[in-house]
């Protein structure tokens, strides 16, 4: 029997780096929240080498949104693909090489970040200019994650040859779709860096086209959020029903949701550029409608996942219209963390419809509302789900029992309470007109109204509770790693409720890939051609503004 020792090791190392990055990245979060509240710790922190709020904010964004997510996802999915196909990686060396490329890239990017040479925030908008090796480092992280995906695809290809005509198991298929989506959508940022930014930051060309660089960035920037989210969905659809004691309500529709994400995630990046001067309204409107269409697979997911949990609740003896919820395994930290993540994410989804809504977006664009929003999505929907996954995965990998079940439960609830208060504060600040990416405590000497005070306090209080929750998480992880008590924990794999044959169109890549490419060409092609025709390489770099 295959014990998947190699895959455990590969995934384990990825996840170790991920948790390390998150631990460092999160530290800056409460500092920002406290600054918003009026407690400015940054002058004192210069003594330990943190030069500014904005250096911290760059580290916070890069380490949390880019490093924690990418390392966790590549590690986790590598393992899920192997387990789901019941087959070791065909080329484990490729997965290792991928890991090292990512680590080298991370180190290259971390050095200028820590030296305050790359305080350009995680969006790295030109003409703010970091040293060239910062951009090269980020590129290597992306290339490494591609290699990781290739290794998964090659493994699947070998499996397919041995299982002619068989339907790919759901967990493997969903993981592969996530990685392929990533390959497609990162072409934007790859071309931004390789074609525009690297020559410019190396001094080979004097100027850069700022509008075009933004368009290429957001080509990747929106699907990036689906790259974060889909691995969480892998767990919600394919694992949580099992943890809840039930089955996956509709496997065909689960597959359909993933295919639709592959189809629709990329051709809609202009919704991050609604207020950009260089893009005509008609194109923005097209992207708005396409963005709303992603609402469709999201709603499919909401129904299917909740119905699967209901199936579990009833199987555990729950009855009534809603009382089955009480019968769910609320004593299991892994289940609880992920369920709470889902609930918080649902609110994020509703807010997301507001962000996506074309001119309604004008009210909240670039305000504190936006970080309020994404701490409910990537900051909780994704991050708390990954934390919940770790509550079974670490015992599964190490054979050690999870330490402190009660502590872990508290961790999940505290995070949820904290983020509810925190993001409520930021949402309100945004509606009152407070900008994001701003030292709001300092800014209130310049503008703002007394009404801002209460939501500023909410932000600070909620952020503090989240910090406490994260410390509890680290305690649980460290204590588990050192636990003497052993346990045999399996990877949860949900069965389908109905055993139906999966129709060919839900098992076939071709129509979805062709559709995705066609939609991208329609949504981006004409604008890209036009931007290139009137290329404006006029902006020199600025690296002395922080």
């Amino acid at each position, binding site marked *: 029997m295959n014990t998947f020792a190699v895959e455990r090791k590969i995934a384990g190392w990825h996840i170790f780096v991920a948790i390390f990055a998150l631990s460092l990245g999160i530290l800056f979060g409460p500092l920002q929240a406290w600054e918003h509240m009026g407690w400015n710790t940054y002058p004192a922190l210069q003594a330990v080498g943190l030069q*500014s709020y*904005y250096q911290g*904010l760059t580290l916070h964004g890069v380490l949390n949104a880019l490093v924690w997510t990418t390392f966790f996802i590549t590690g986790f999915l590598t393992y899920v693909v192997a387990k789901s196909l019941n087959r070791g990686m065909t080329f484990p060396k490729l997965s290792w090489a991928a890991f090292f490329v990512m680590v080298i890239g991370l180190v290259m990017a971390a050095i200028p970040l820590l030296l305050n040479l790359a305080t350009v*925030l995680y969006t790295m*908008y030109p*003409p*703010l200019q970091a040293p060239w090796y910062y951009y090269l480092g980020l590129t290597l992280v992306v290339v490494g994650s591609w290699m990781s995906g290739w290794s998964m695809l090659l493994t699947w290809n070998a499996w397919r040859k041995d299982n002619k005509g068989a339907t790919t198991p759901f967990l493997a298929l969903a993981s592969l779709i996530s990685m392929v989506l990533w390959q497609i959508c990162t072409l934007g940022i790859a071309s931004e860096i390789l074609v525009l930014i690297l020559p410019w930051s190396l001094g080979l060309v004097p100027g850069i*086209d*700022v*509008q075009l660089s933004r368009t290429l960035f957001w080509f990747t920037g929106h699907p990036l959020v689906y790259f974060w989210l889909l691995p969480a969905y892998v767990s919600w659809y394919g694992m949580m029903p099992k943890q809840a004691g039930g089955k996956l309500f*509709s496997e*065909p*529709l689960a597959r*359909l949701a993933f295919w639709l994400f592959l189809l629709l995630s990329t051709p809609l990046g202009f919704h991050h550029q*609604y*207020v*950009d*001067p*260089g*893009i*005509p*309204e008609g194109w923005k*409107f097209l992207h*708005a409608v396409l963005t*709303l269409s992603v*609402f*469709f697979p999201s*709603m*499919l997911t909401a*129904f299917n996942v909740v*119905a699967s949990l209901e199936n579990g609740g009833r199987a555990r003896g729950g009855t009534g219209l809603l009382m089955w919820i009480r019968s769910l395994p609320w004593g299991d930290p892994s289940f609880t963390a992920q369920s709470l993540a889902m609930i918080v994410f649902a609110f994020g989804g509703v807010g997301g*419809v507001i962000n996506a*809504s*074309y*001119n309604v977006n*004008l*009210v909240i*664009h*670039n*305000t504190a509302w936006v970080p309020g929003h994404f701490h409910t999505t990537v900051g909780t929907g994704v991050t708390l789900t990954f934390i919940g996954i770790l509550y079974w995965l670490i015992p599964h990998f190490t054979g050690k029992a999870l330490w402190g079940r009660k502590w872990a439960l508290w961790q999940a609830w505290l995070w949820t309470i904290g983020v509810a208060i925190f993001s409520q504060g930021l949402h309100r600040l945004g509606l009152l*007109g407070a*900008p*994001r*990416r*701003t*030292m709001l405590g*300092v*800014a209130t000497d*310049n*503008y703002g109204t007394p009404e801002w005070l209460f939501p500023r306090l909410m932000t600070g209080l909620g952020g503090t509770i989240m910090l406490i929750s994260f410390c509890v998480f680290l305690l649980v992880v460290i204590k588990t790693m050192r636990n003497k008590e052993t346990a045999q924990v399996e990877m949860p794999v949900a069965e389908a409720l*109905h055993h*139906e044959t999966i129709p060919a169109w*839900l098992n076939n890549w071709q129509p979805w890939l062709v559709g995705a490419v066609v939609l991208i060409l329609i949504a981006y092609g004409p604008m890209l051609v036009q931007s290139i025709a009137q290329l*404006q390489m*006029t*902006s*020199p770099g*600025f690296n*002395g*503004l922080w």
Partner: protein
Amino acid sequence: MIHVHVYEKWWIGLTVAMLIAFSLAIGVSGFMMGIQLPSPEALVNPNTVAKQGDFANPGLKELAPKKYVAYIRAEANPWKFRPEKIEVPVGSTVTFYVTAVDVQHGFKLEGTNINVQILPGQVSKMTATFNQKGEFPFVCTEFCGVGHQNMFGKLIVK
């Protein structure tokens, strides 16, 4: 065909109805009621824009009674909008033209729908009518360096 539960069919129908309703709402408000987004206005050279043309002497210009244009430059280090203060009589319609001479900035004017990204090389244009007396701050909404939080100005309606 795949098996879809009746409740789920209803749910899918509801989702599609919402999608259509939302799209219509933003389409109608955007293209028929005039709640518009910024669109391409003009390209400029960020390296010379402060020295020649409309942005060399930024500020308010009267086109007709109660009809104004305002040219505004966003600058980092020192972090400022030029001009920082604009005064118009109540009932005025003002069209703002804003550009950046260095890095990206933002421009959000309280009490209006004006909220736009300011890019070097591009001119962002927005219009609003001011029917209420008062002071309306405009703030920079994009990170533009360590002085970003000090970058703001005021529109005074008298």
